[in-house]
């Protein structure tokens, strides 16, 4: 499970997260919602280990292991996966080559054997079919020239291939039309299991119609200001984030 306690994070000397606490047990899906500038992306980047996100106070652990002491790739090897809001283009590296390199790097770090080409390709074909990804697309350099929807689908495909312990979805719904949103959500839902935790970061309630959360948290002014069941998301849809503004100030 993911456990975040009193997390303070500064970027470029400005404090963005101001004592954020969050517990996500294995098997549960929690949504974090909040207005622009609340610190949603800062939370995902900090958990994933991006440089330049300075933790000044607090702790974060995954299954009891201190995340903050690890480099980004070690966190990935422990099973932390971040689906990016804006996936990056990697020119010259075919998508499949990229994913196989990543998977084997993770397996190596965990002391497991590398996956052979036939087993990898079989898995890739299965997962690609589920996400309605043309196999030819996987031979193209990762994300280069992909549409916004294709990039997001590729994130979910990577997630399925890497089979992580804990998923963070950062604004996965942004830039998706309804059909793409449905395919992506189905992909995510297929990964729900009793061992896996998920943190779904979103601005809109819309995504939560497809990916039903167990808990919803409101992030404003750098901390969690309200928590509740799925109904909290619907409430927010009606009332907006304004009522949390005083907490932010």
């Amino acid at each position: 499970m993911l456990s975040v306690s009193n997390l303070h994070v500064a970027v470029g000397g400005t404090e963005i997260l101001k004592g954020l606490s969050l517990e996500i047990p294995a098997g549960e899906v929690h949504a974090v919602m909040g207005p622009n500038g609340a610190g949603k992306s800062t939370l995902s980047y900090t958990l994933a280990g991006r440089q330049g996100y300075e933790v000044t106070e607090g702790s974060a652990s995954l299954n009891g292991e201190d995340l903050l002491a690890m480099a980004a790739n070690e966190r990935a090897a422990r099973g932390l996966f971040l689906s990016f809001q804006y996936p990056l283009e990697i020119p010259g590296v075919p998508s499949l080559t990229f994913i196989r390199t990543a998977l084997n790097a993770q397996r190596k770090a965990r002391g497991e054997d590398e996956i052979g080409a036939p087993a990898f390709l079989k898995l890739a074909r299965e997962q690609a079919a589920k996400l309605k990804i043309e196999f030819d697309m996987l031979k193209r350099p990762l994300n280069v020239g992909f549409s916004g929807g294709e990039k997001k689908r590729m994130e979910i495909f990577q997630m399925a291939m890497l089979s992580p312990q804990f998923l963070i979805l950062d604004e996965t719904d942004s830039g998706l039309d309804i059909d793409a949103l449905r395919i992506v959500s189905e992909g995510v839902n297929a990964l729900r299991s009793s061992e896996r935790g998920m943190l779904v970061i979103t601005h809109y309630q819309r995504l939560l119609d497809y990916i039903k959360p167990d808990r919803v948290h409101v992030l404003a002014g750098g901390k969690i200001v309200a928590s509740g069941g799925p109904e909290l998301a619907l409430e927010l849809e009606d009332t907006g984030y304004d009522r949390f503004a005083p907490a932010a100030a």
Partner: protein
Amino acid sequence: MAAVKQTIDQVEQLEAYEHGFVTDIAQDFAPKGLSEDIVRFISAKKQEPDWMLQWRLEAYARWLAMDAPDWAKVSFPKIDFQDLYFYAAPSQKAGPMSLDEVDPELLKTYAKLGIPLREQEVLAGVQGAPRYAVDAVFDSVSVVTTFKKELAEVGVIFCSFSEAVREHPELVKRYLGTVVPTTDNYYACLNSAVFSDGSFVYVPPGVRCPMELSTYFRINAQNTGQFERTLIIADQGAYVSYLEGCTAPQRDENQLHAAVVELVVLDDAEIKYSTVQNWYPGDADGKGGIYNFVTKRADCRGDRSKVSWTQVETGSAVTWKYPSCVLRGDDSVGEFYSIAITNGHQQADTGTKMIHLGKNTRSRIISKGISAGKSSNTYRGLVSAHAKATGTRNFTQCDSLLIGKTSGAHTVPYIEARNASSKFEHEATTTRLSDDQLFYVMQRGLSQEEAVQLLVNGFVREVLQELPMEFAVEAQKLVAISLEGSVG
């Protein structure tokens, strides 16, 4: 923290220049310095005929009147030619020999470098090594050439340059200096006077050379210049693929390497010439390393002839090199694919010249420059079309990748079209290896070093694909090693 430990081990393993060892072997040297007597000494050592000596002496006289070029974007202290040895050879009989006669120390050196010289073992599949013919040049002489007999059966001549002068004087006389004239430039002229050894290849009409040919250059002796001379002739309708590799021991002093390569391509013939250059680049403070001042040029003399240069330049303290194509025959094709990587204090000024003289000639330039550390990397290229070279085409793509904040990338393209029907395209990009990309790749499980390697290999992929298979893998590793410690 197994991952971290592994990364550290890997980095430590890679960080040292792995070819930096010195072979302890008895060597014959010419007296230090340069004079007419030295030129005579070298020629005599090689038992050259008088015409060859006269050619050298004339070049030497011309060289005395020339000045070193200063237009390249590189800086280094003036070279004292009187402080160099111009000839060094392992003490043994001159000329080609069977492997049994070669000093075992030398064989060990090549084994250490992974160069297959024992063709009988290669043939028997003992080493499982790729099957390609090798000419091994150690300082100033060629020590062994493999697969000669098999090549001779199809009429291909592959031997050391010295041997060619003795055994095939009519071919050497006809083509030597016709692509790079003696007085072409300062270093080519110096090379013409004191050239030591190199490879000679002649592929007769209609023959497709049955295997890759390669020359492996090794500078071992201290304070020694290496001046190799390579001449490759593809007669009508012939094809040959040729690769050269280079390494040198780690030394504190700078060593000079001034080579000349001439390619002659007749009607319908094709030469593919690949270089993997890994001369010692100097230490982290910029001390030592090779000065690599090389003139390479191909003359597409025949109609529909084709030349393809592919280079992976990772070594040398200073590189000054422009493999070029003179597209003389109608419908001839020139290609230049280049990866130039500089790190530490390395300086590279490299590129190509595509001289379109024939009608409907085409050329293509793909250059990938990567600069890291405090290095400087310059692409310098000329594309020109003669007034009568109608219907010519060129496409140039010139990409630079910067790693870190203290390196420099420069692009200096010259384009001259003297007729209205030529179509030249030039595309150029300069990008910095982005923190966003690095983070993205690391989030998927790669360490920082692995992430840089992956991104850089992606950047140079187009060019790596042009290399013969066996060497592409080698080159990919070299790219990774050259950039160790460049980030973070």
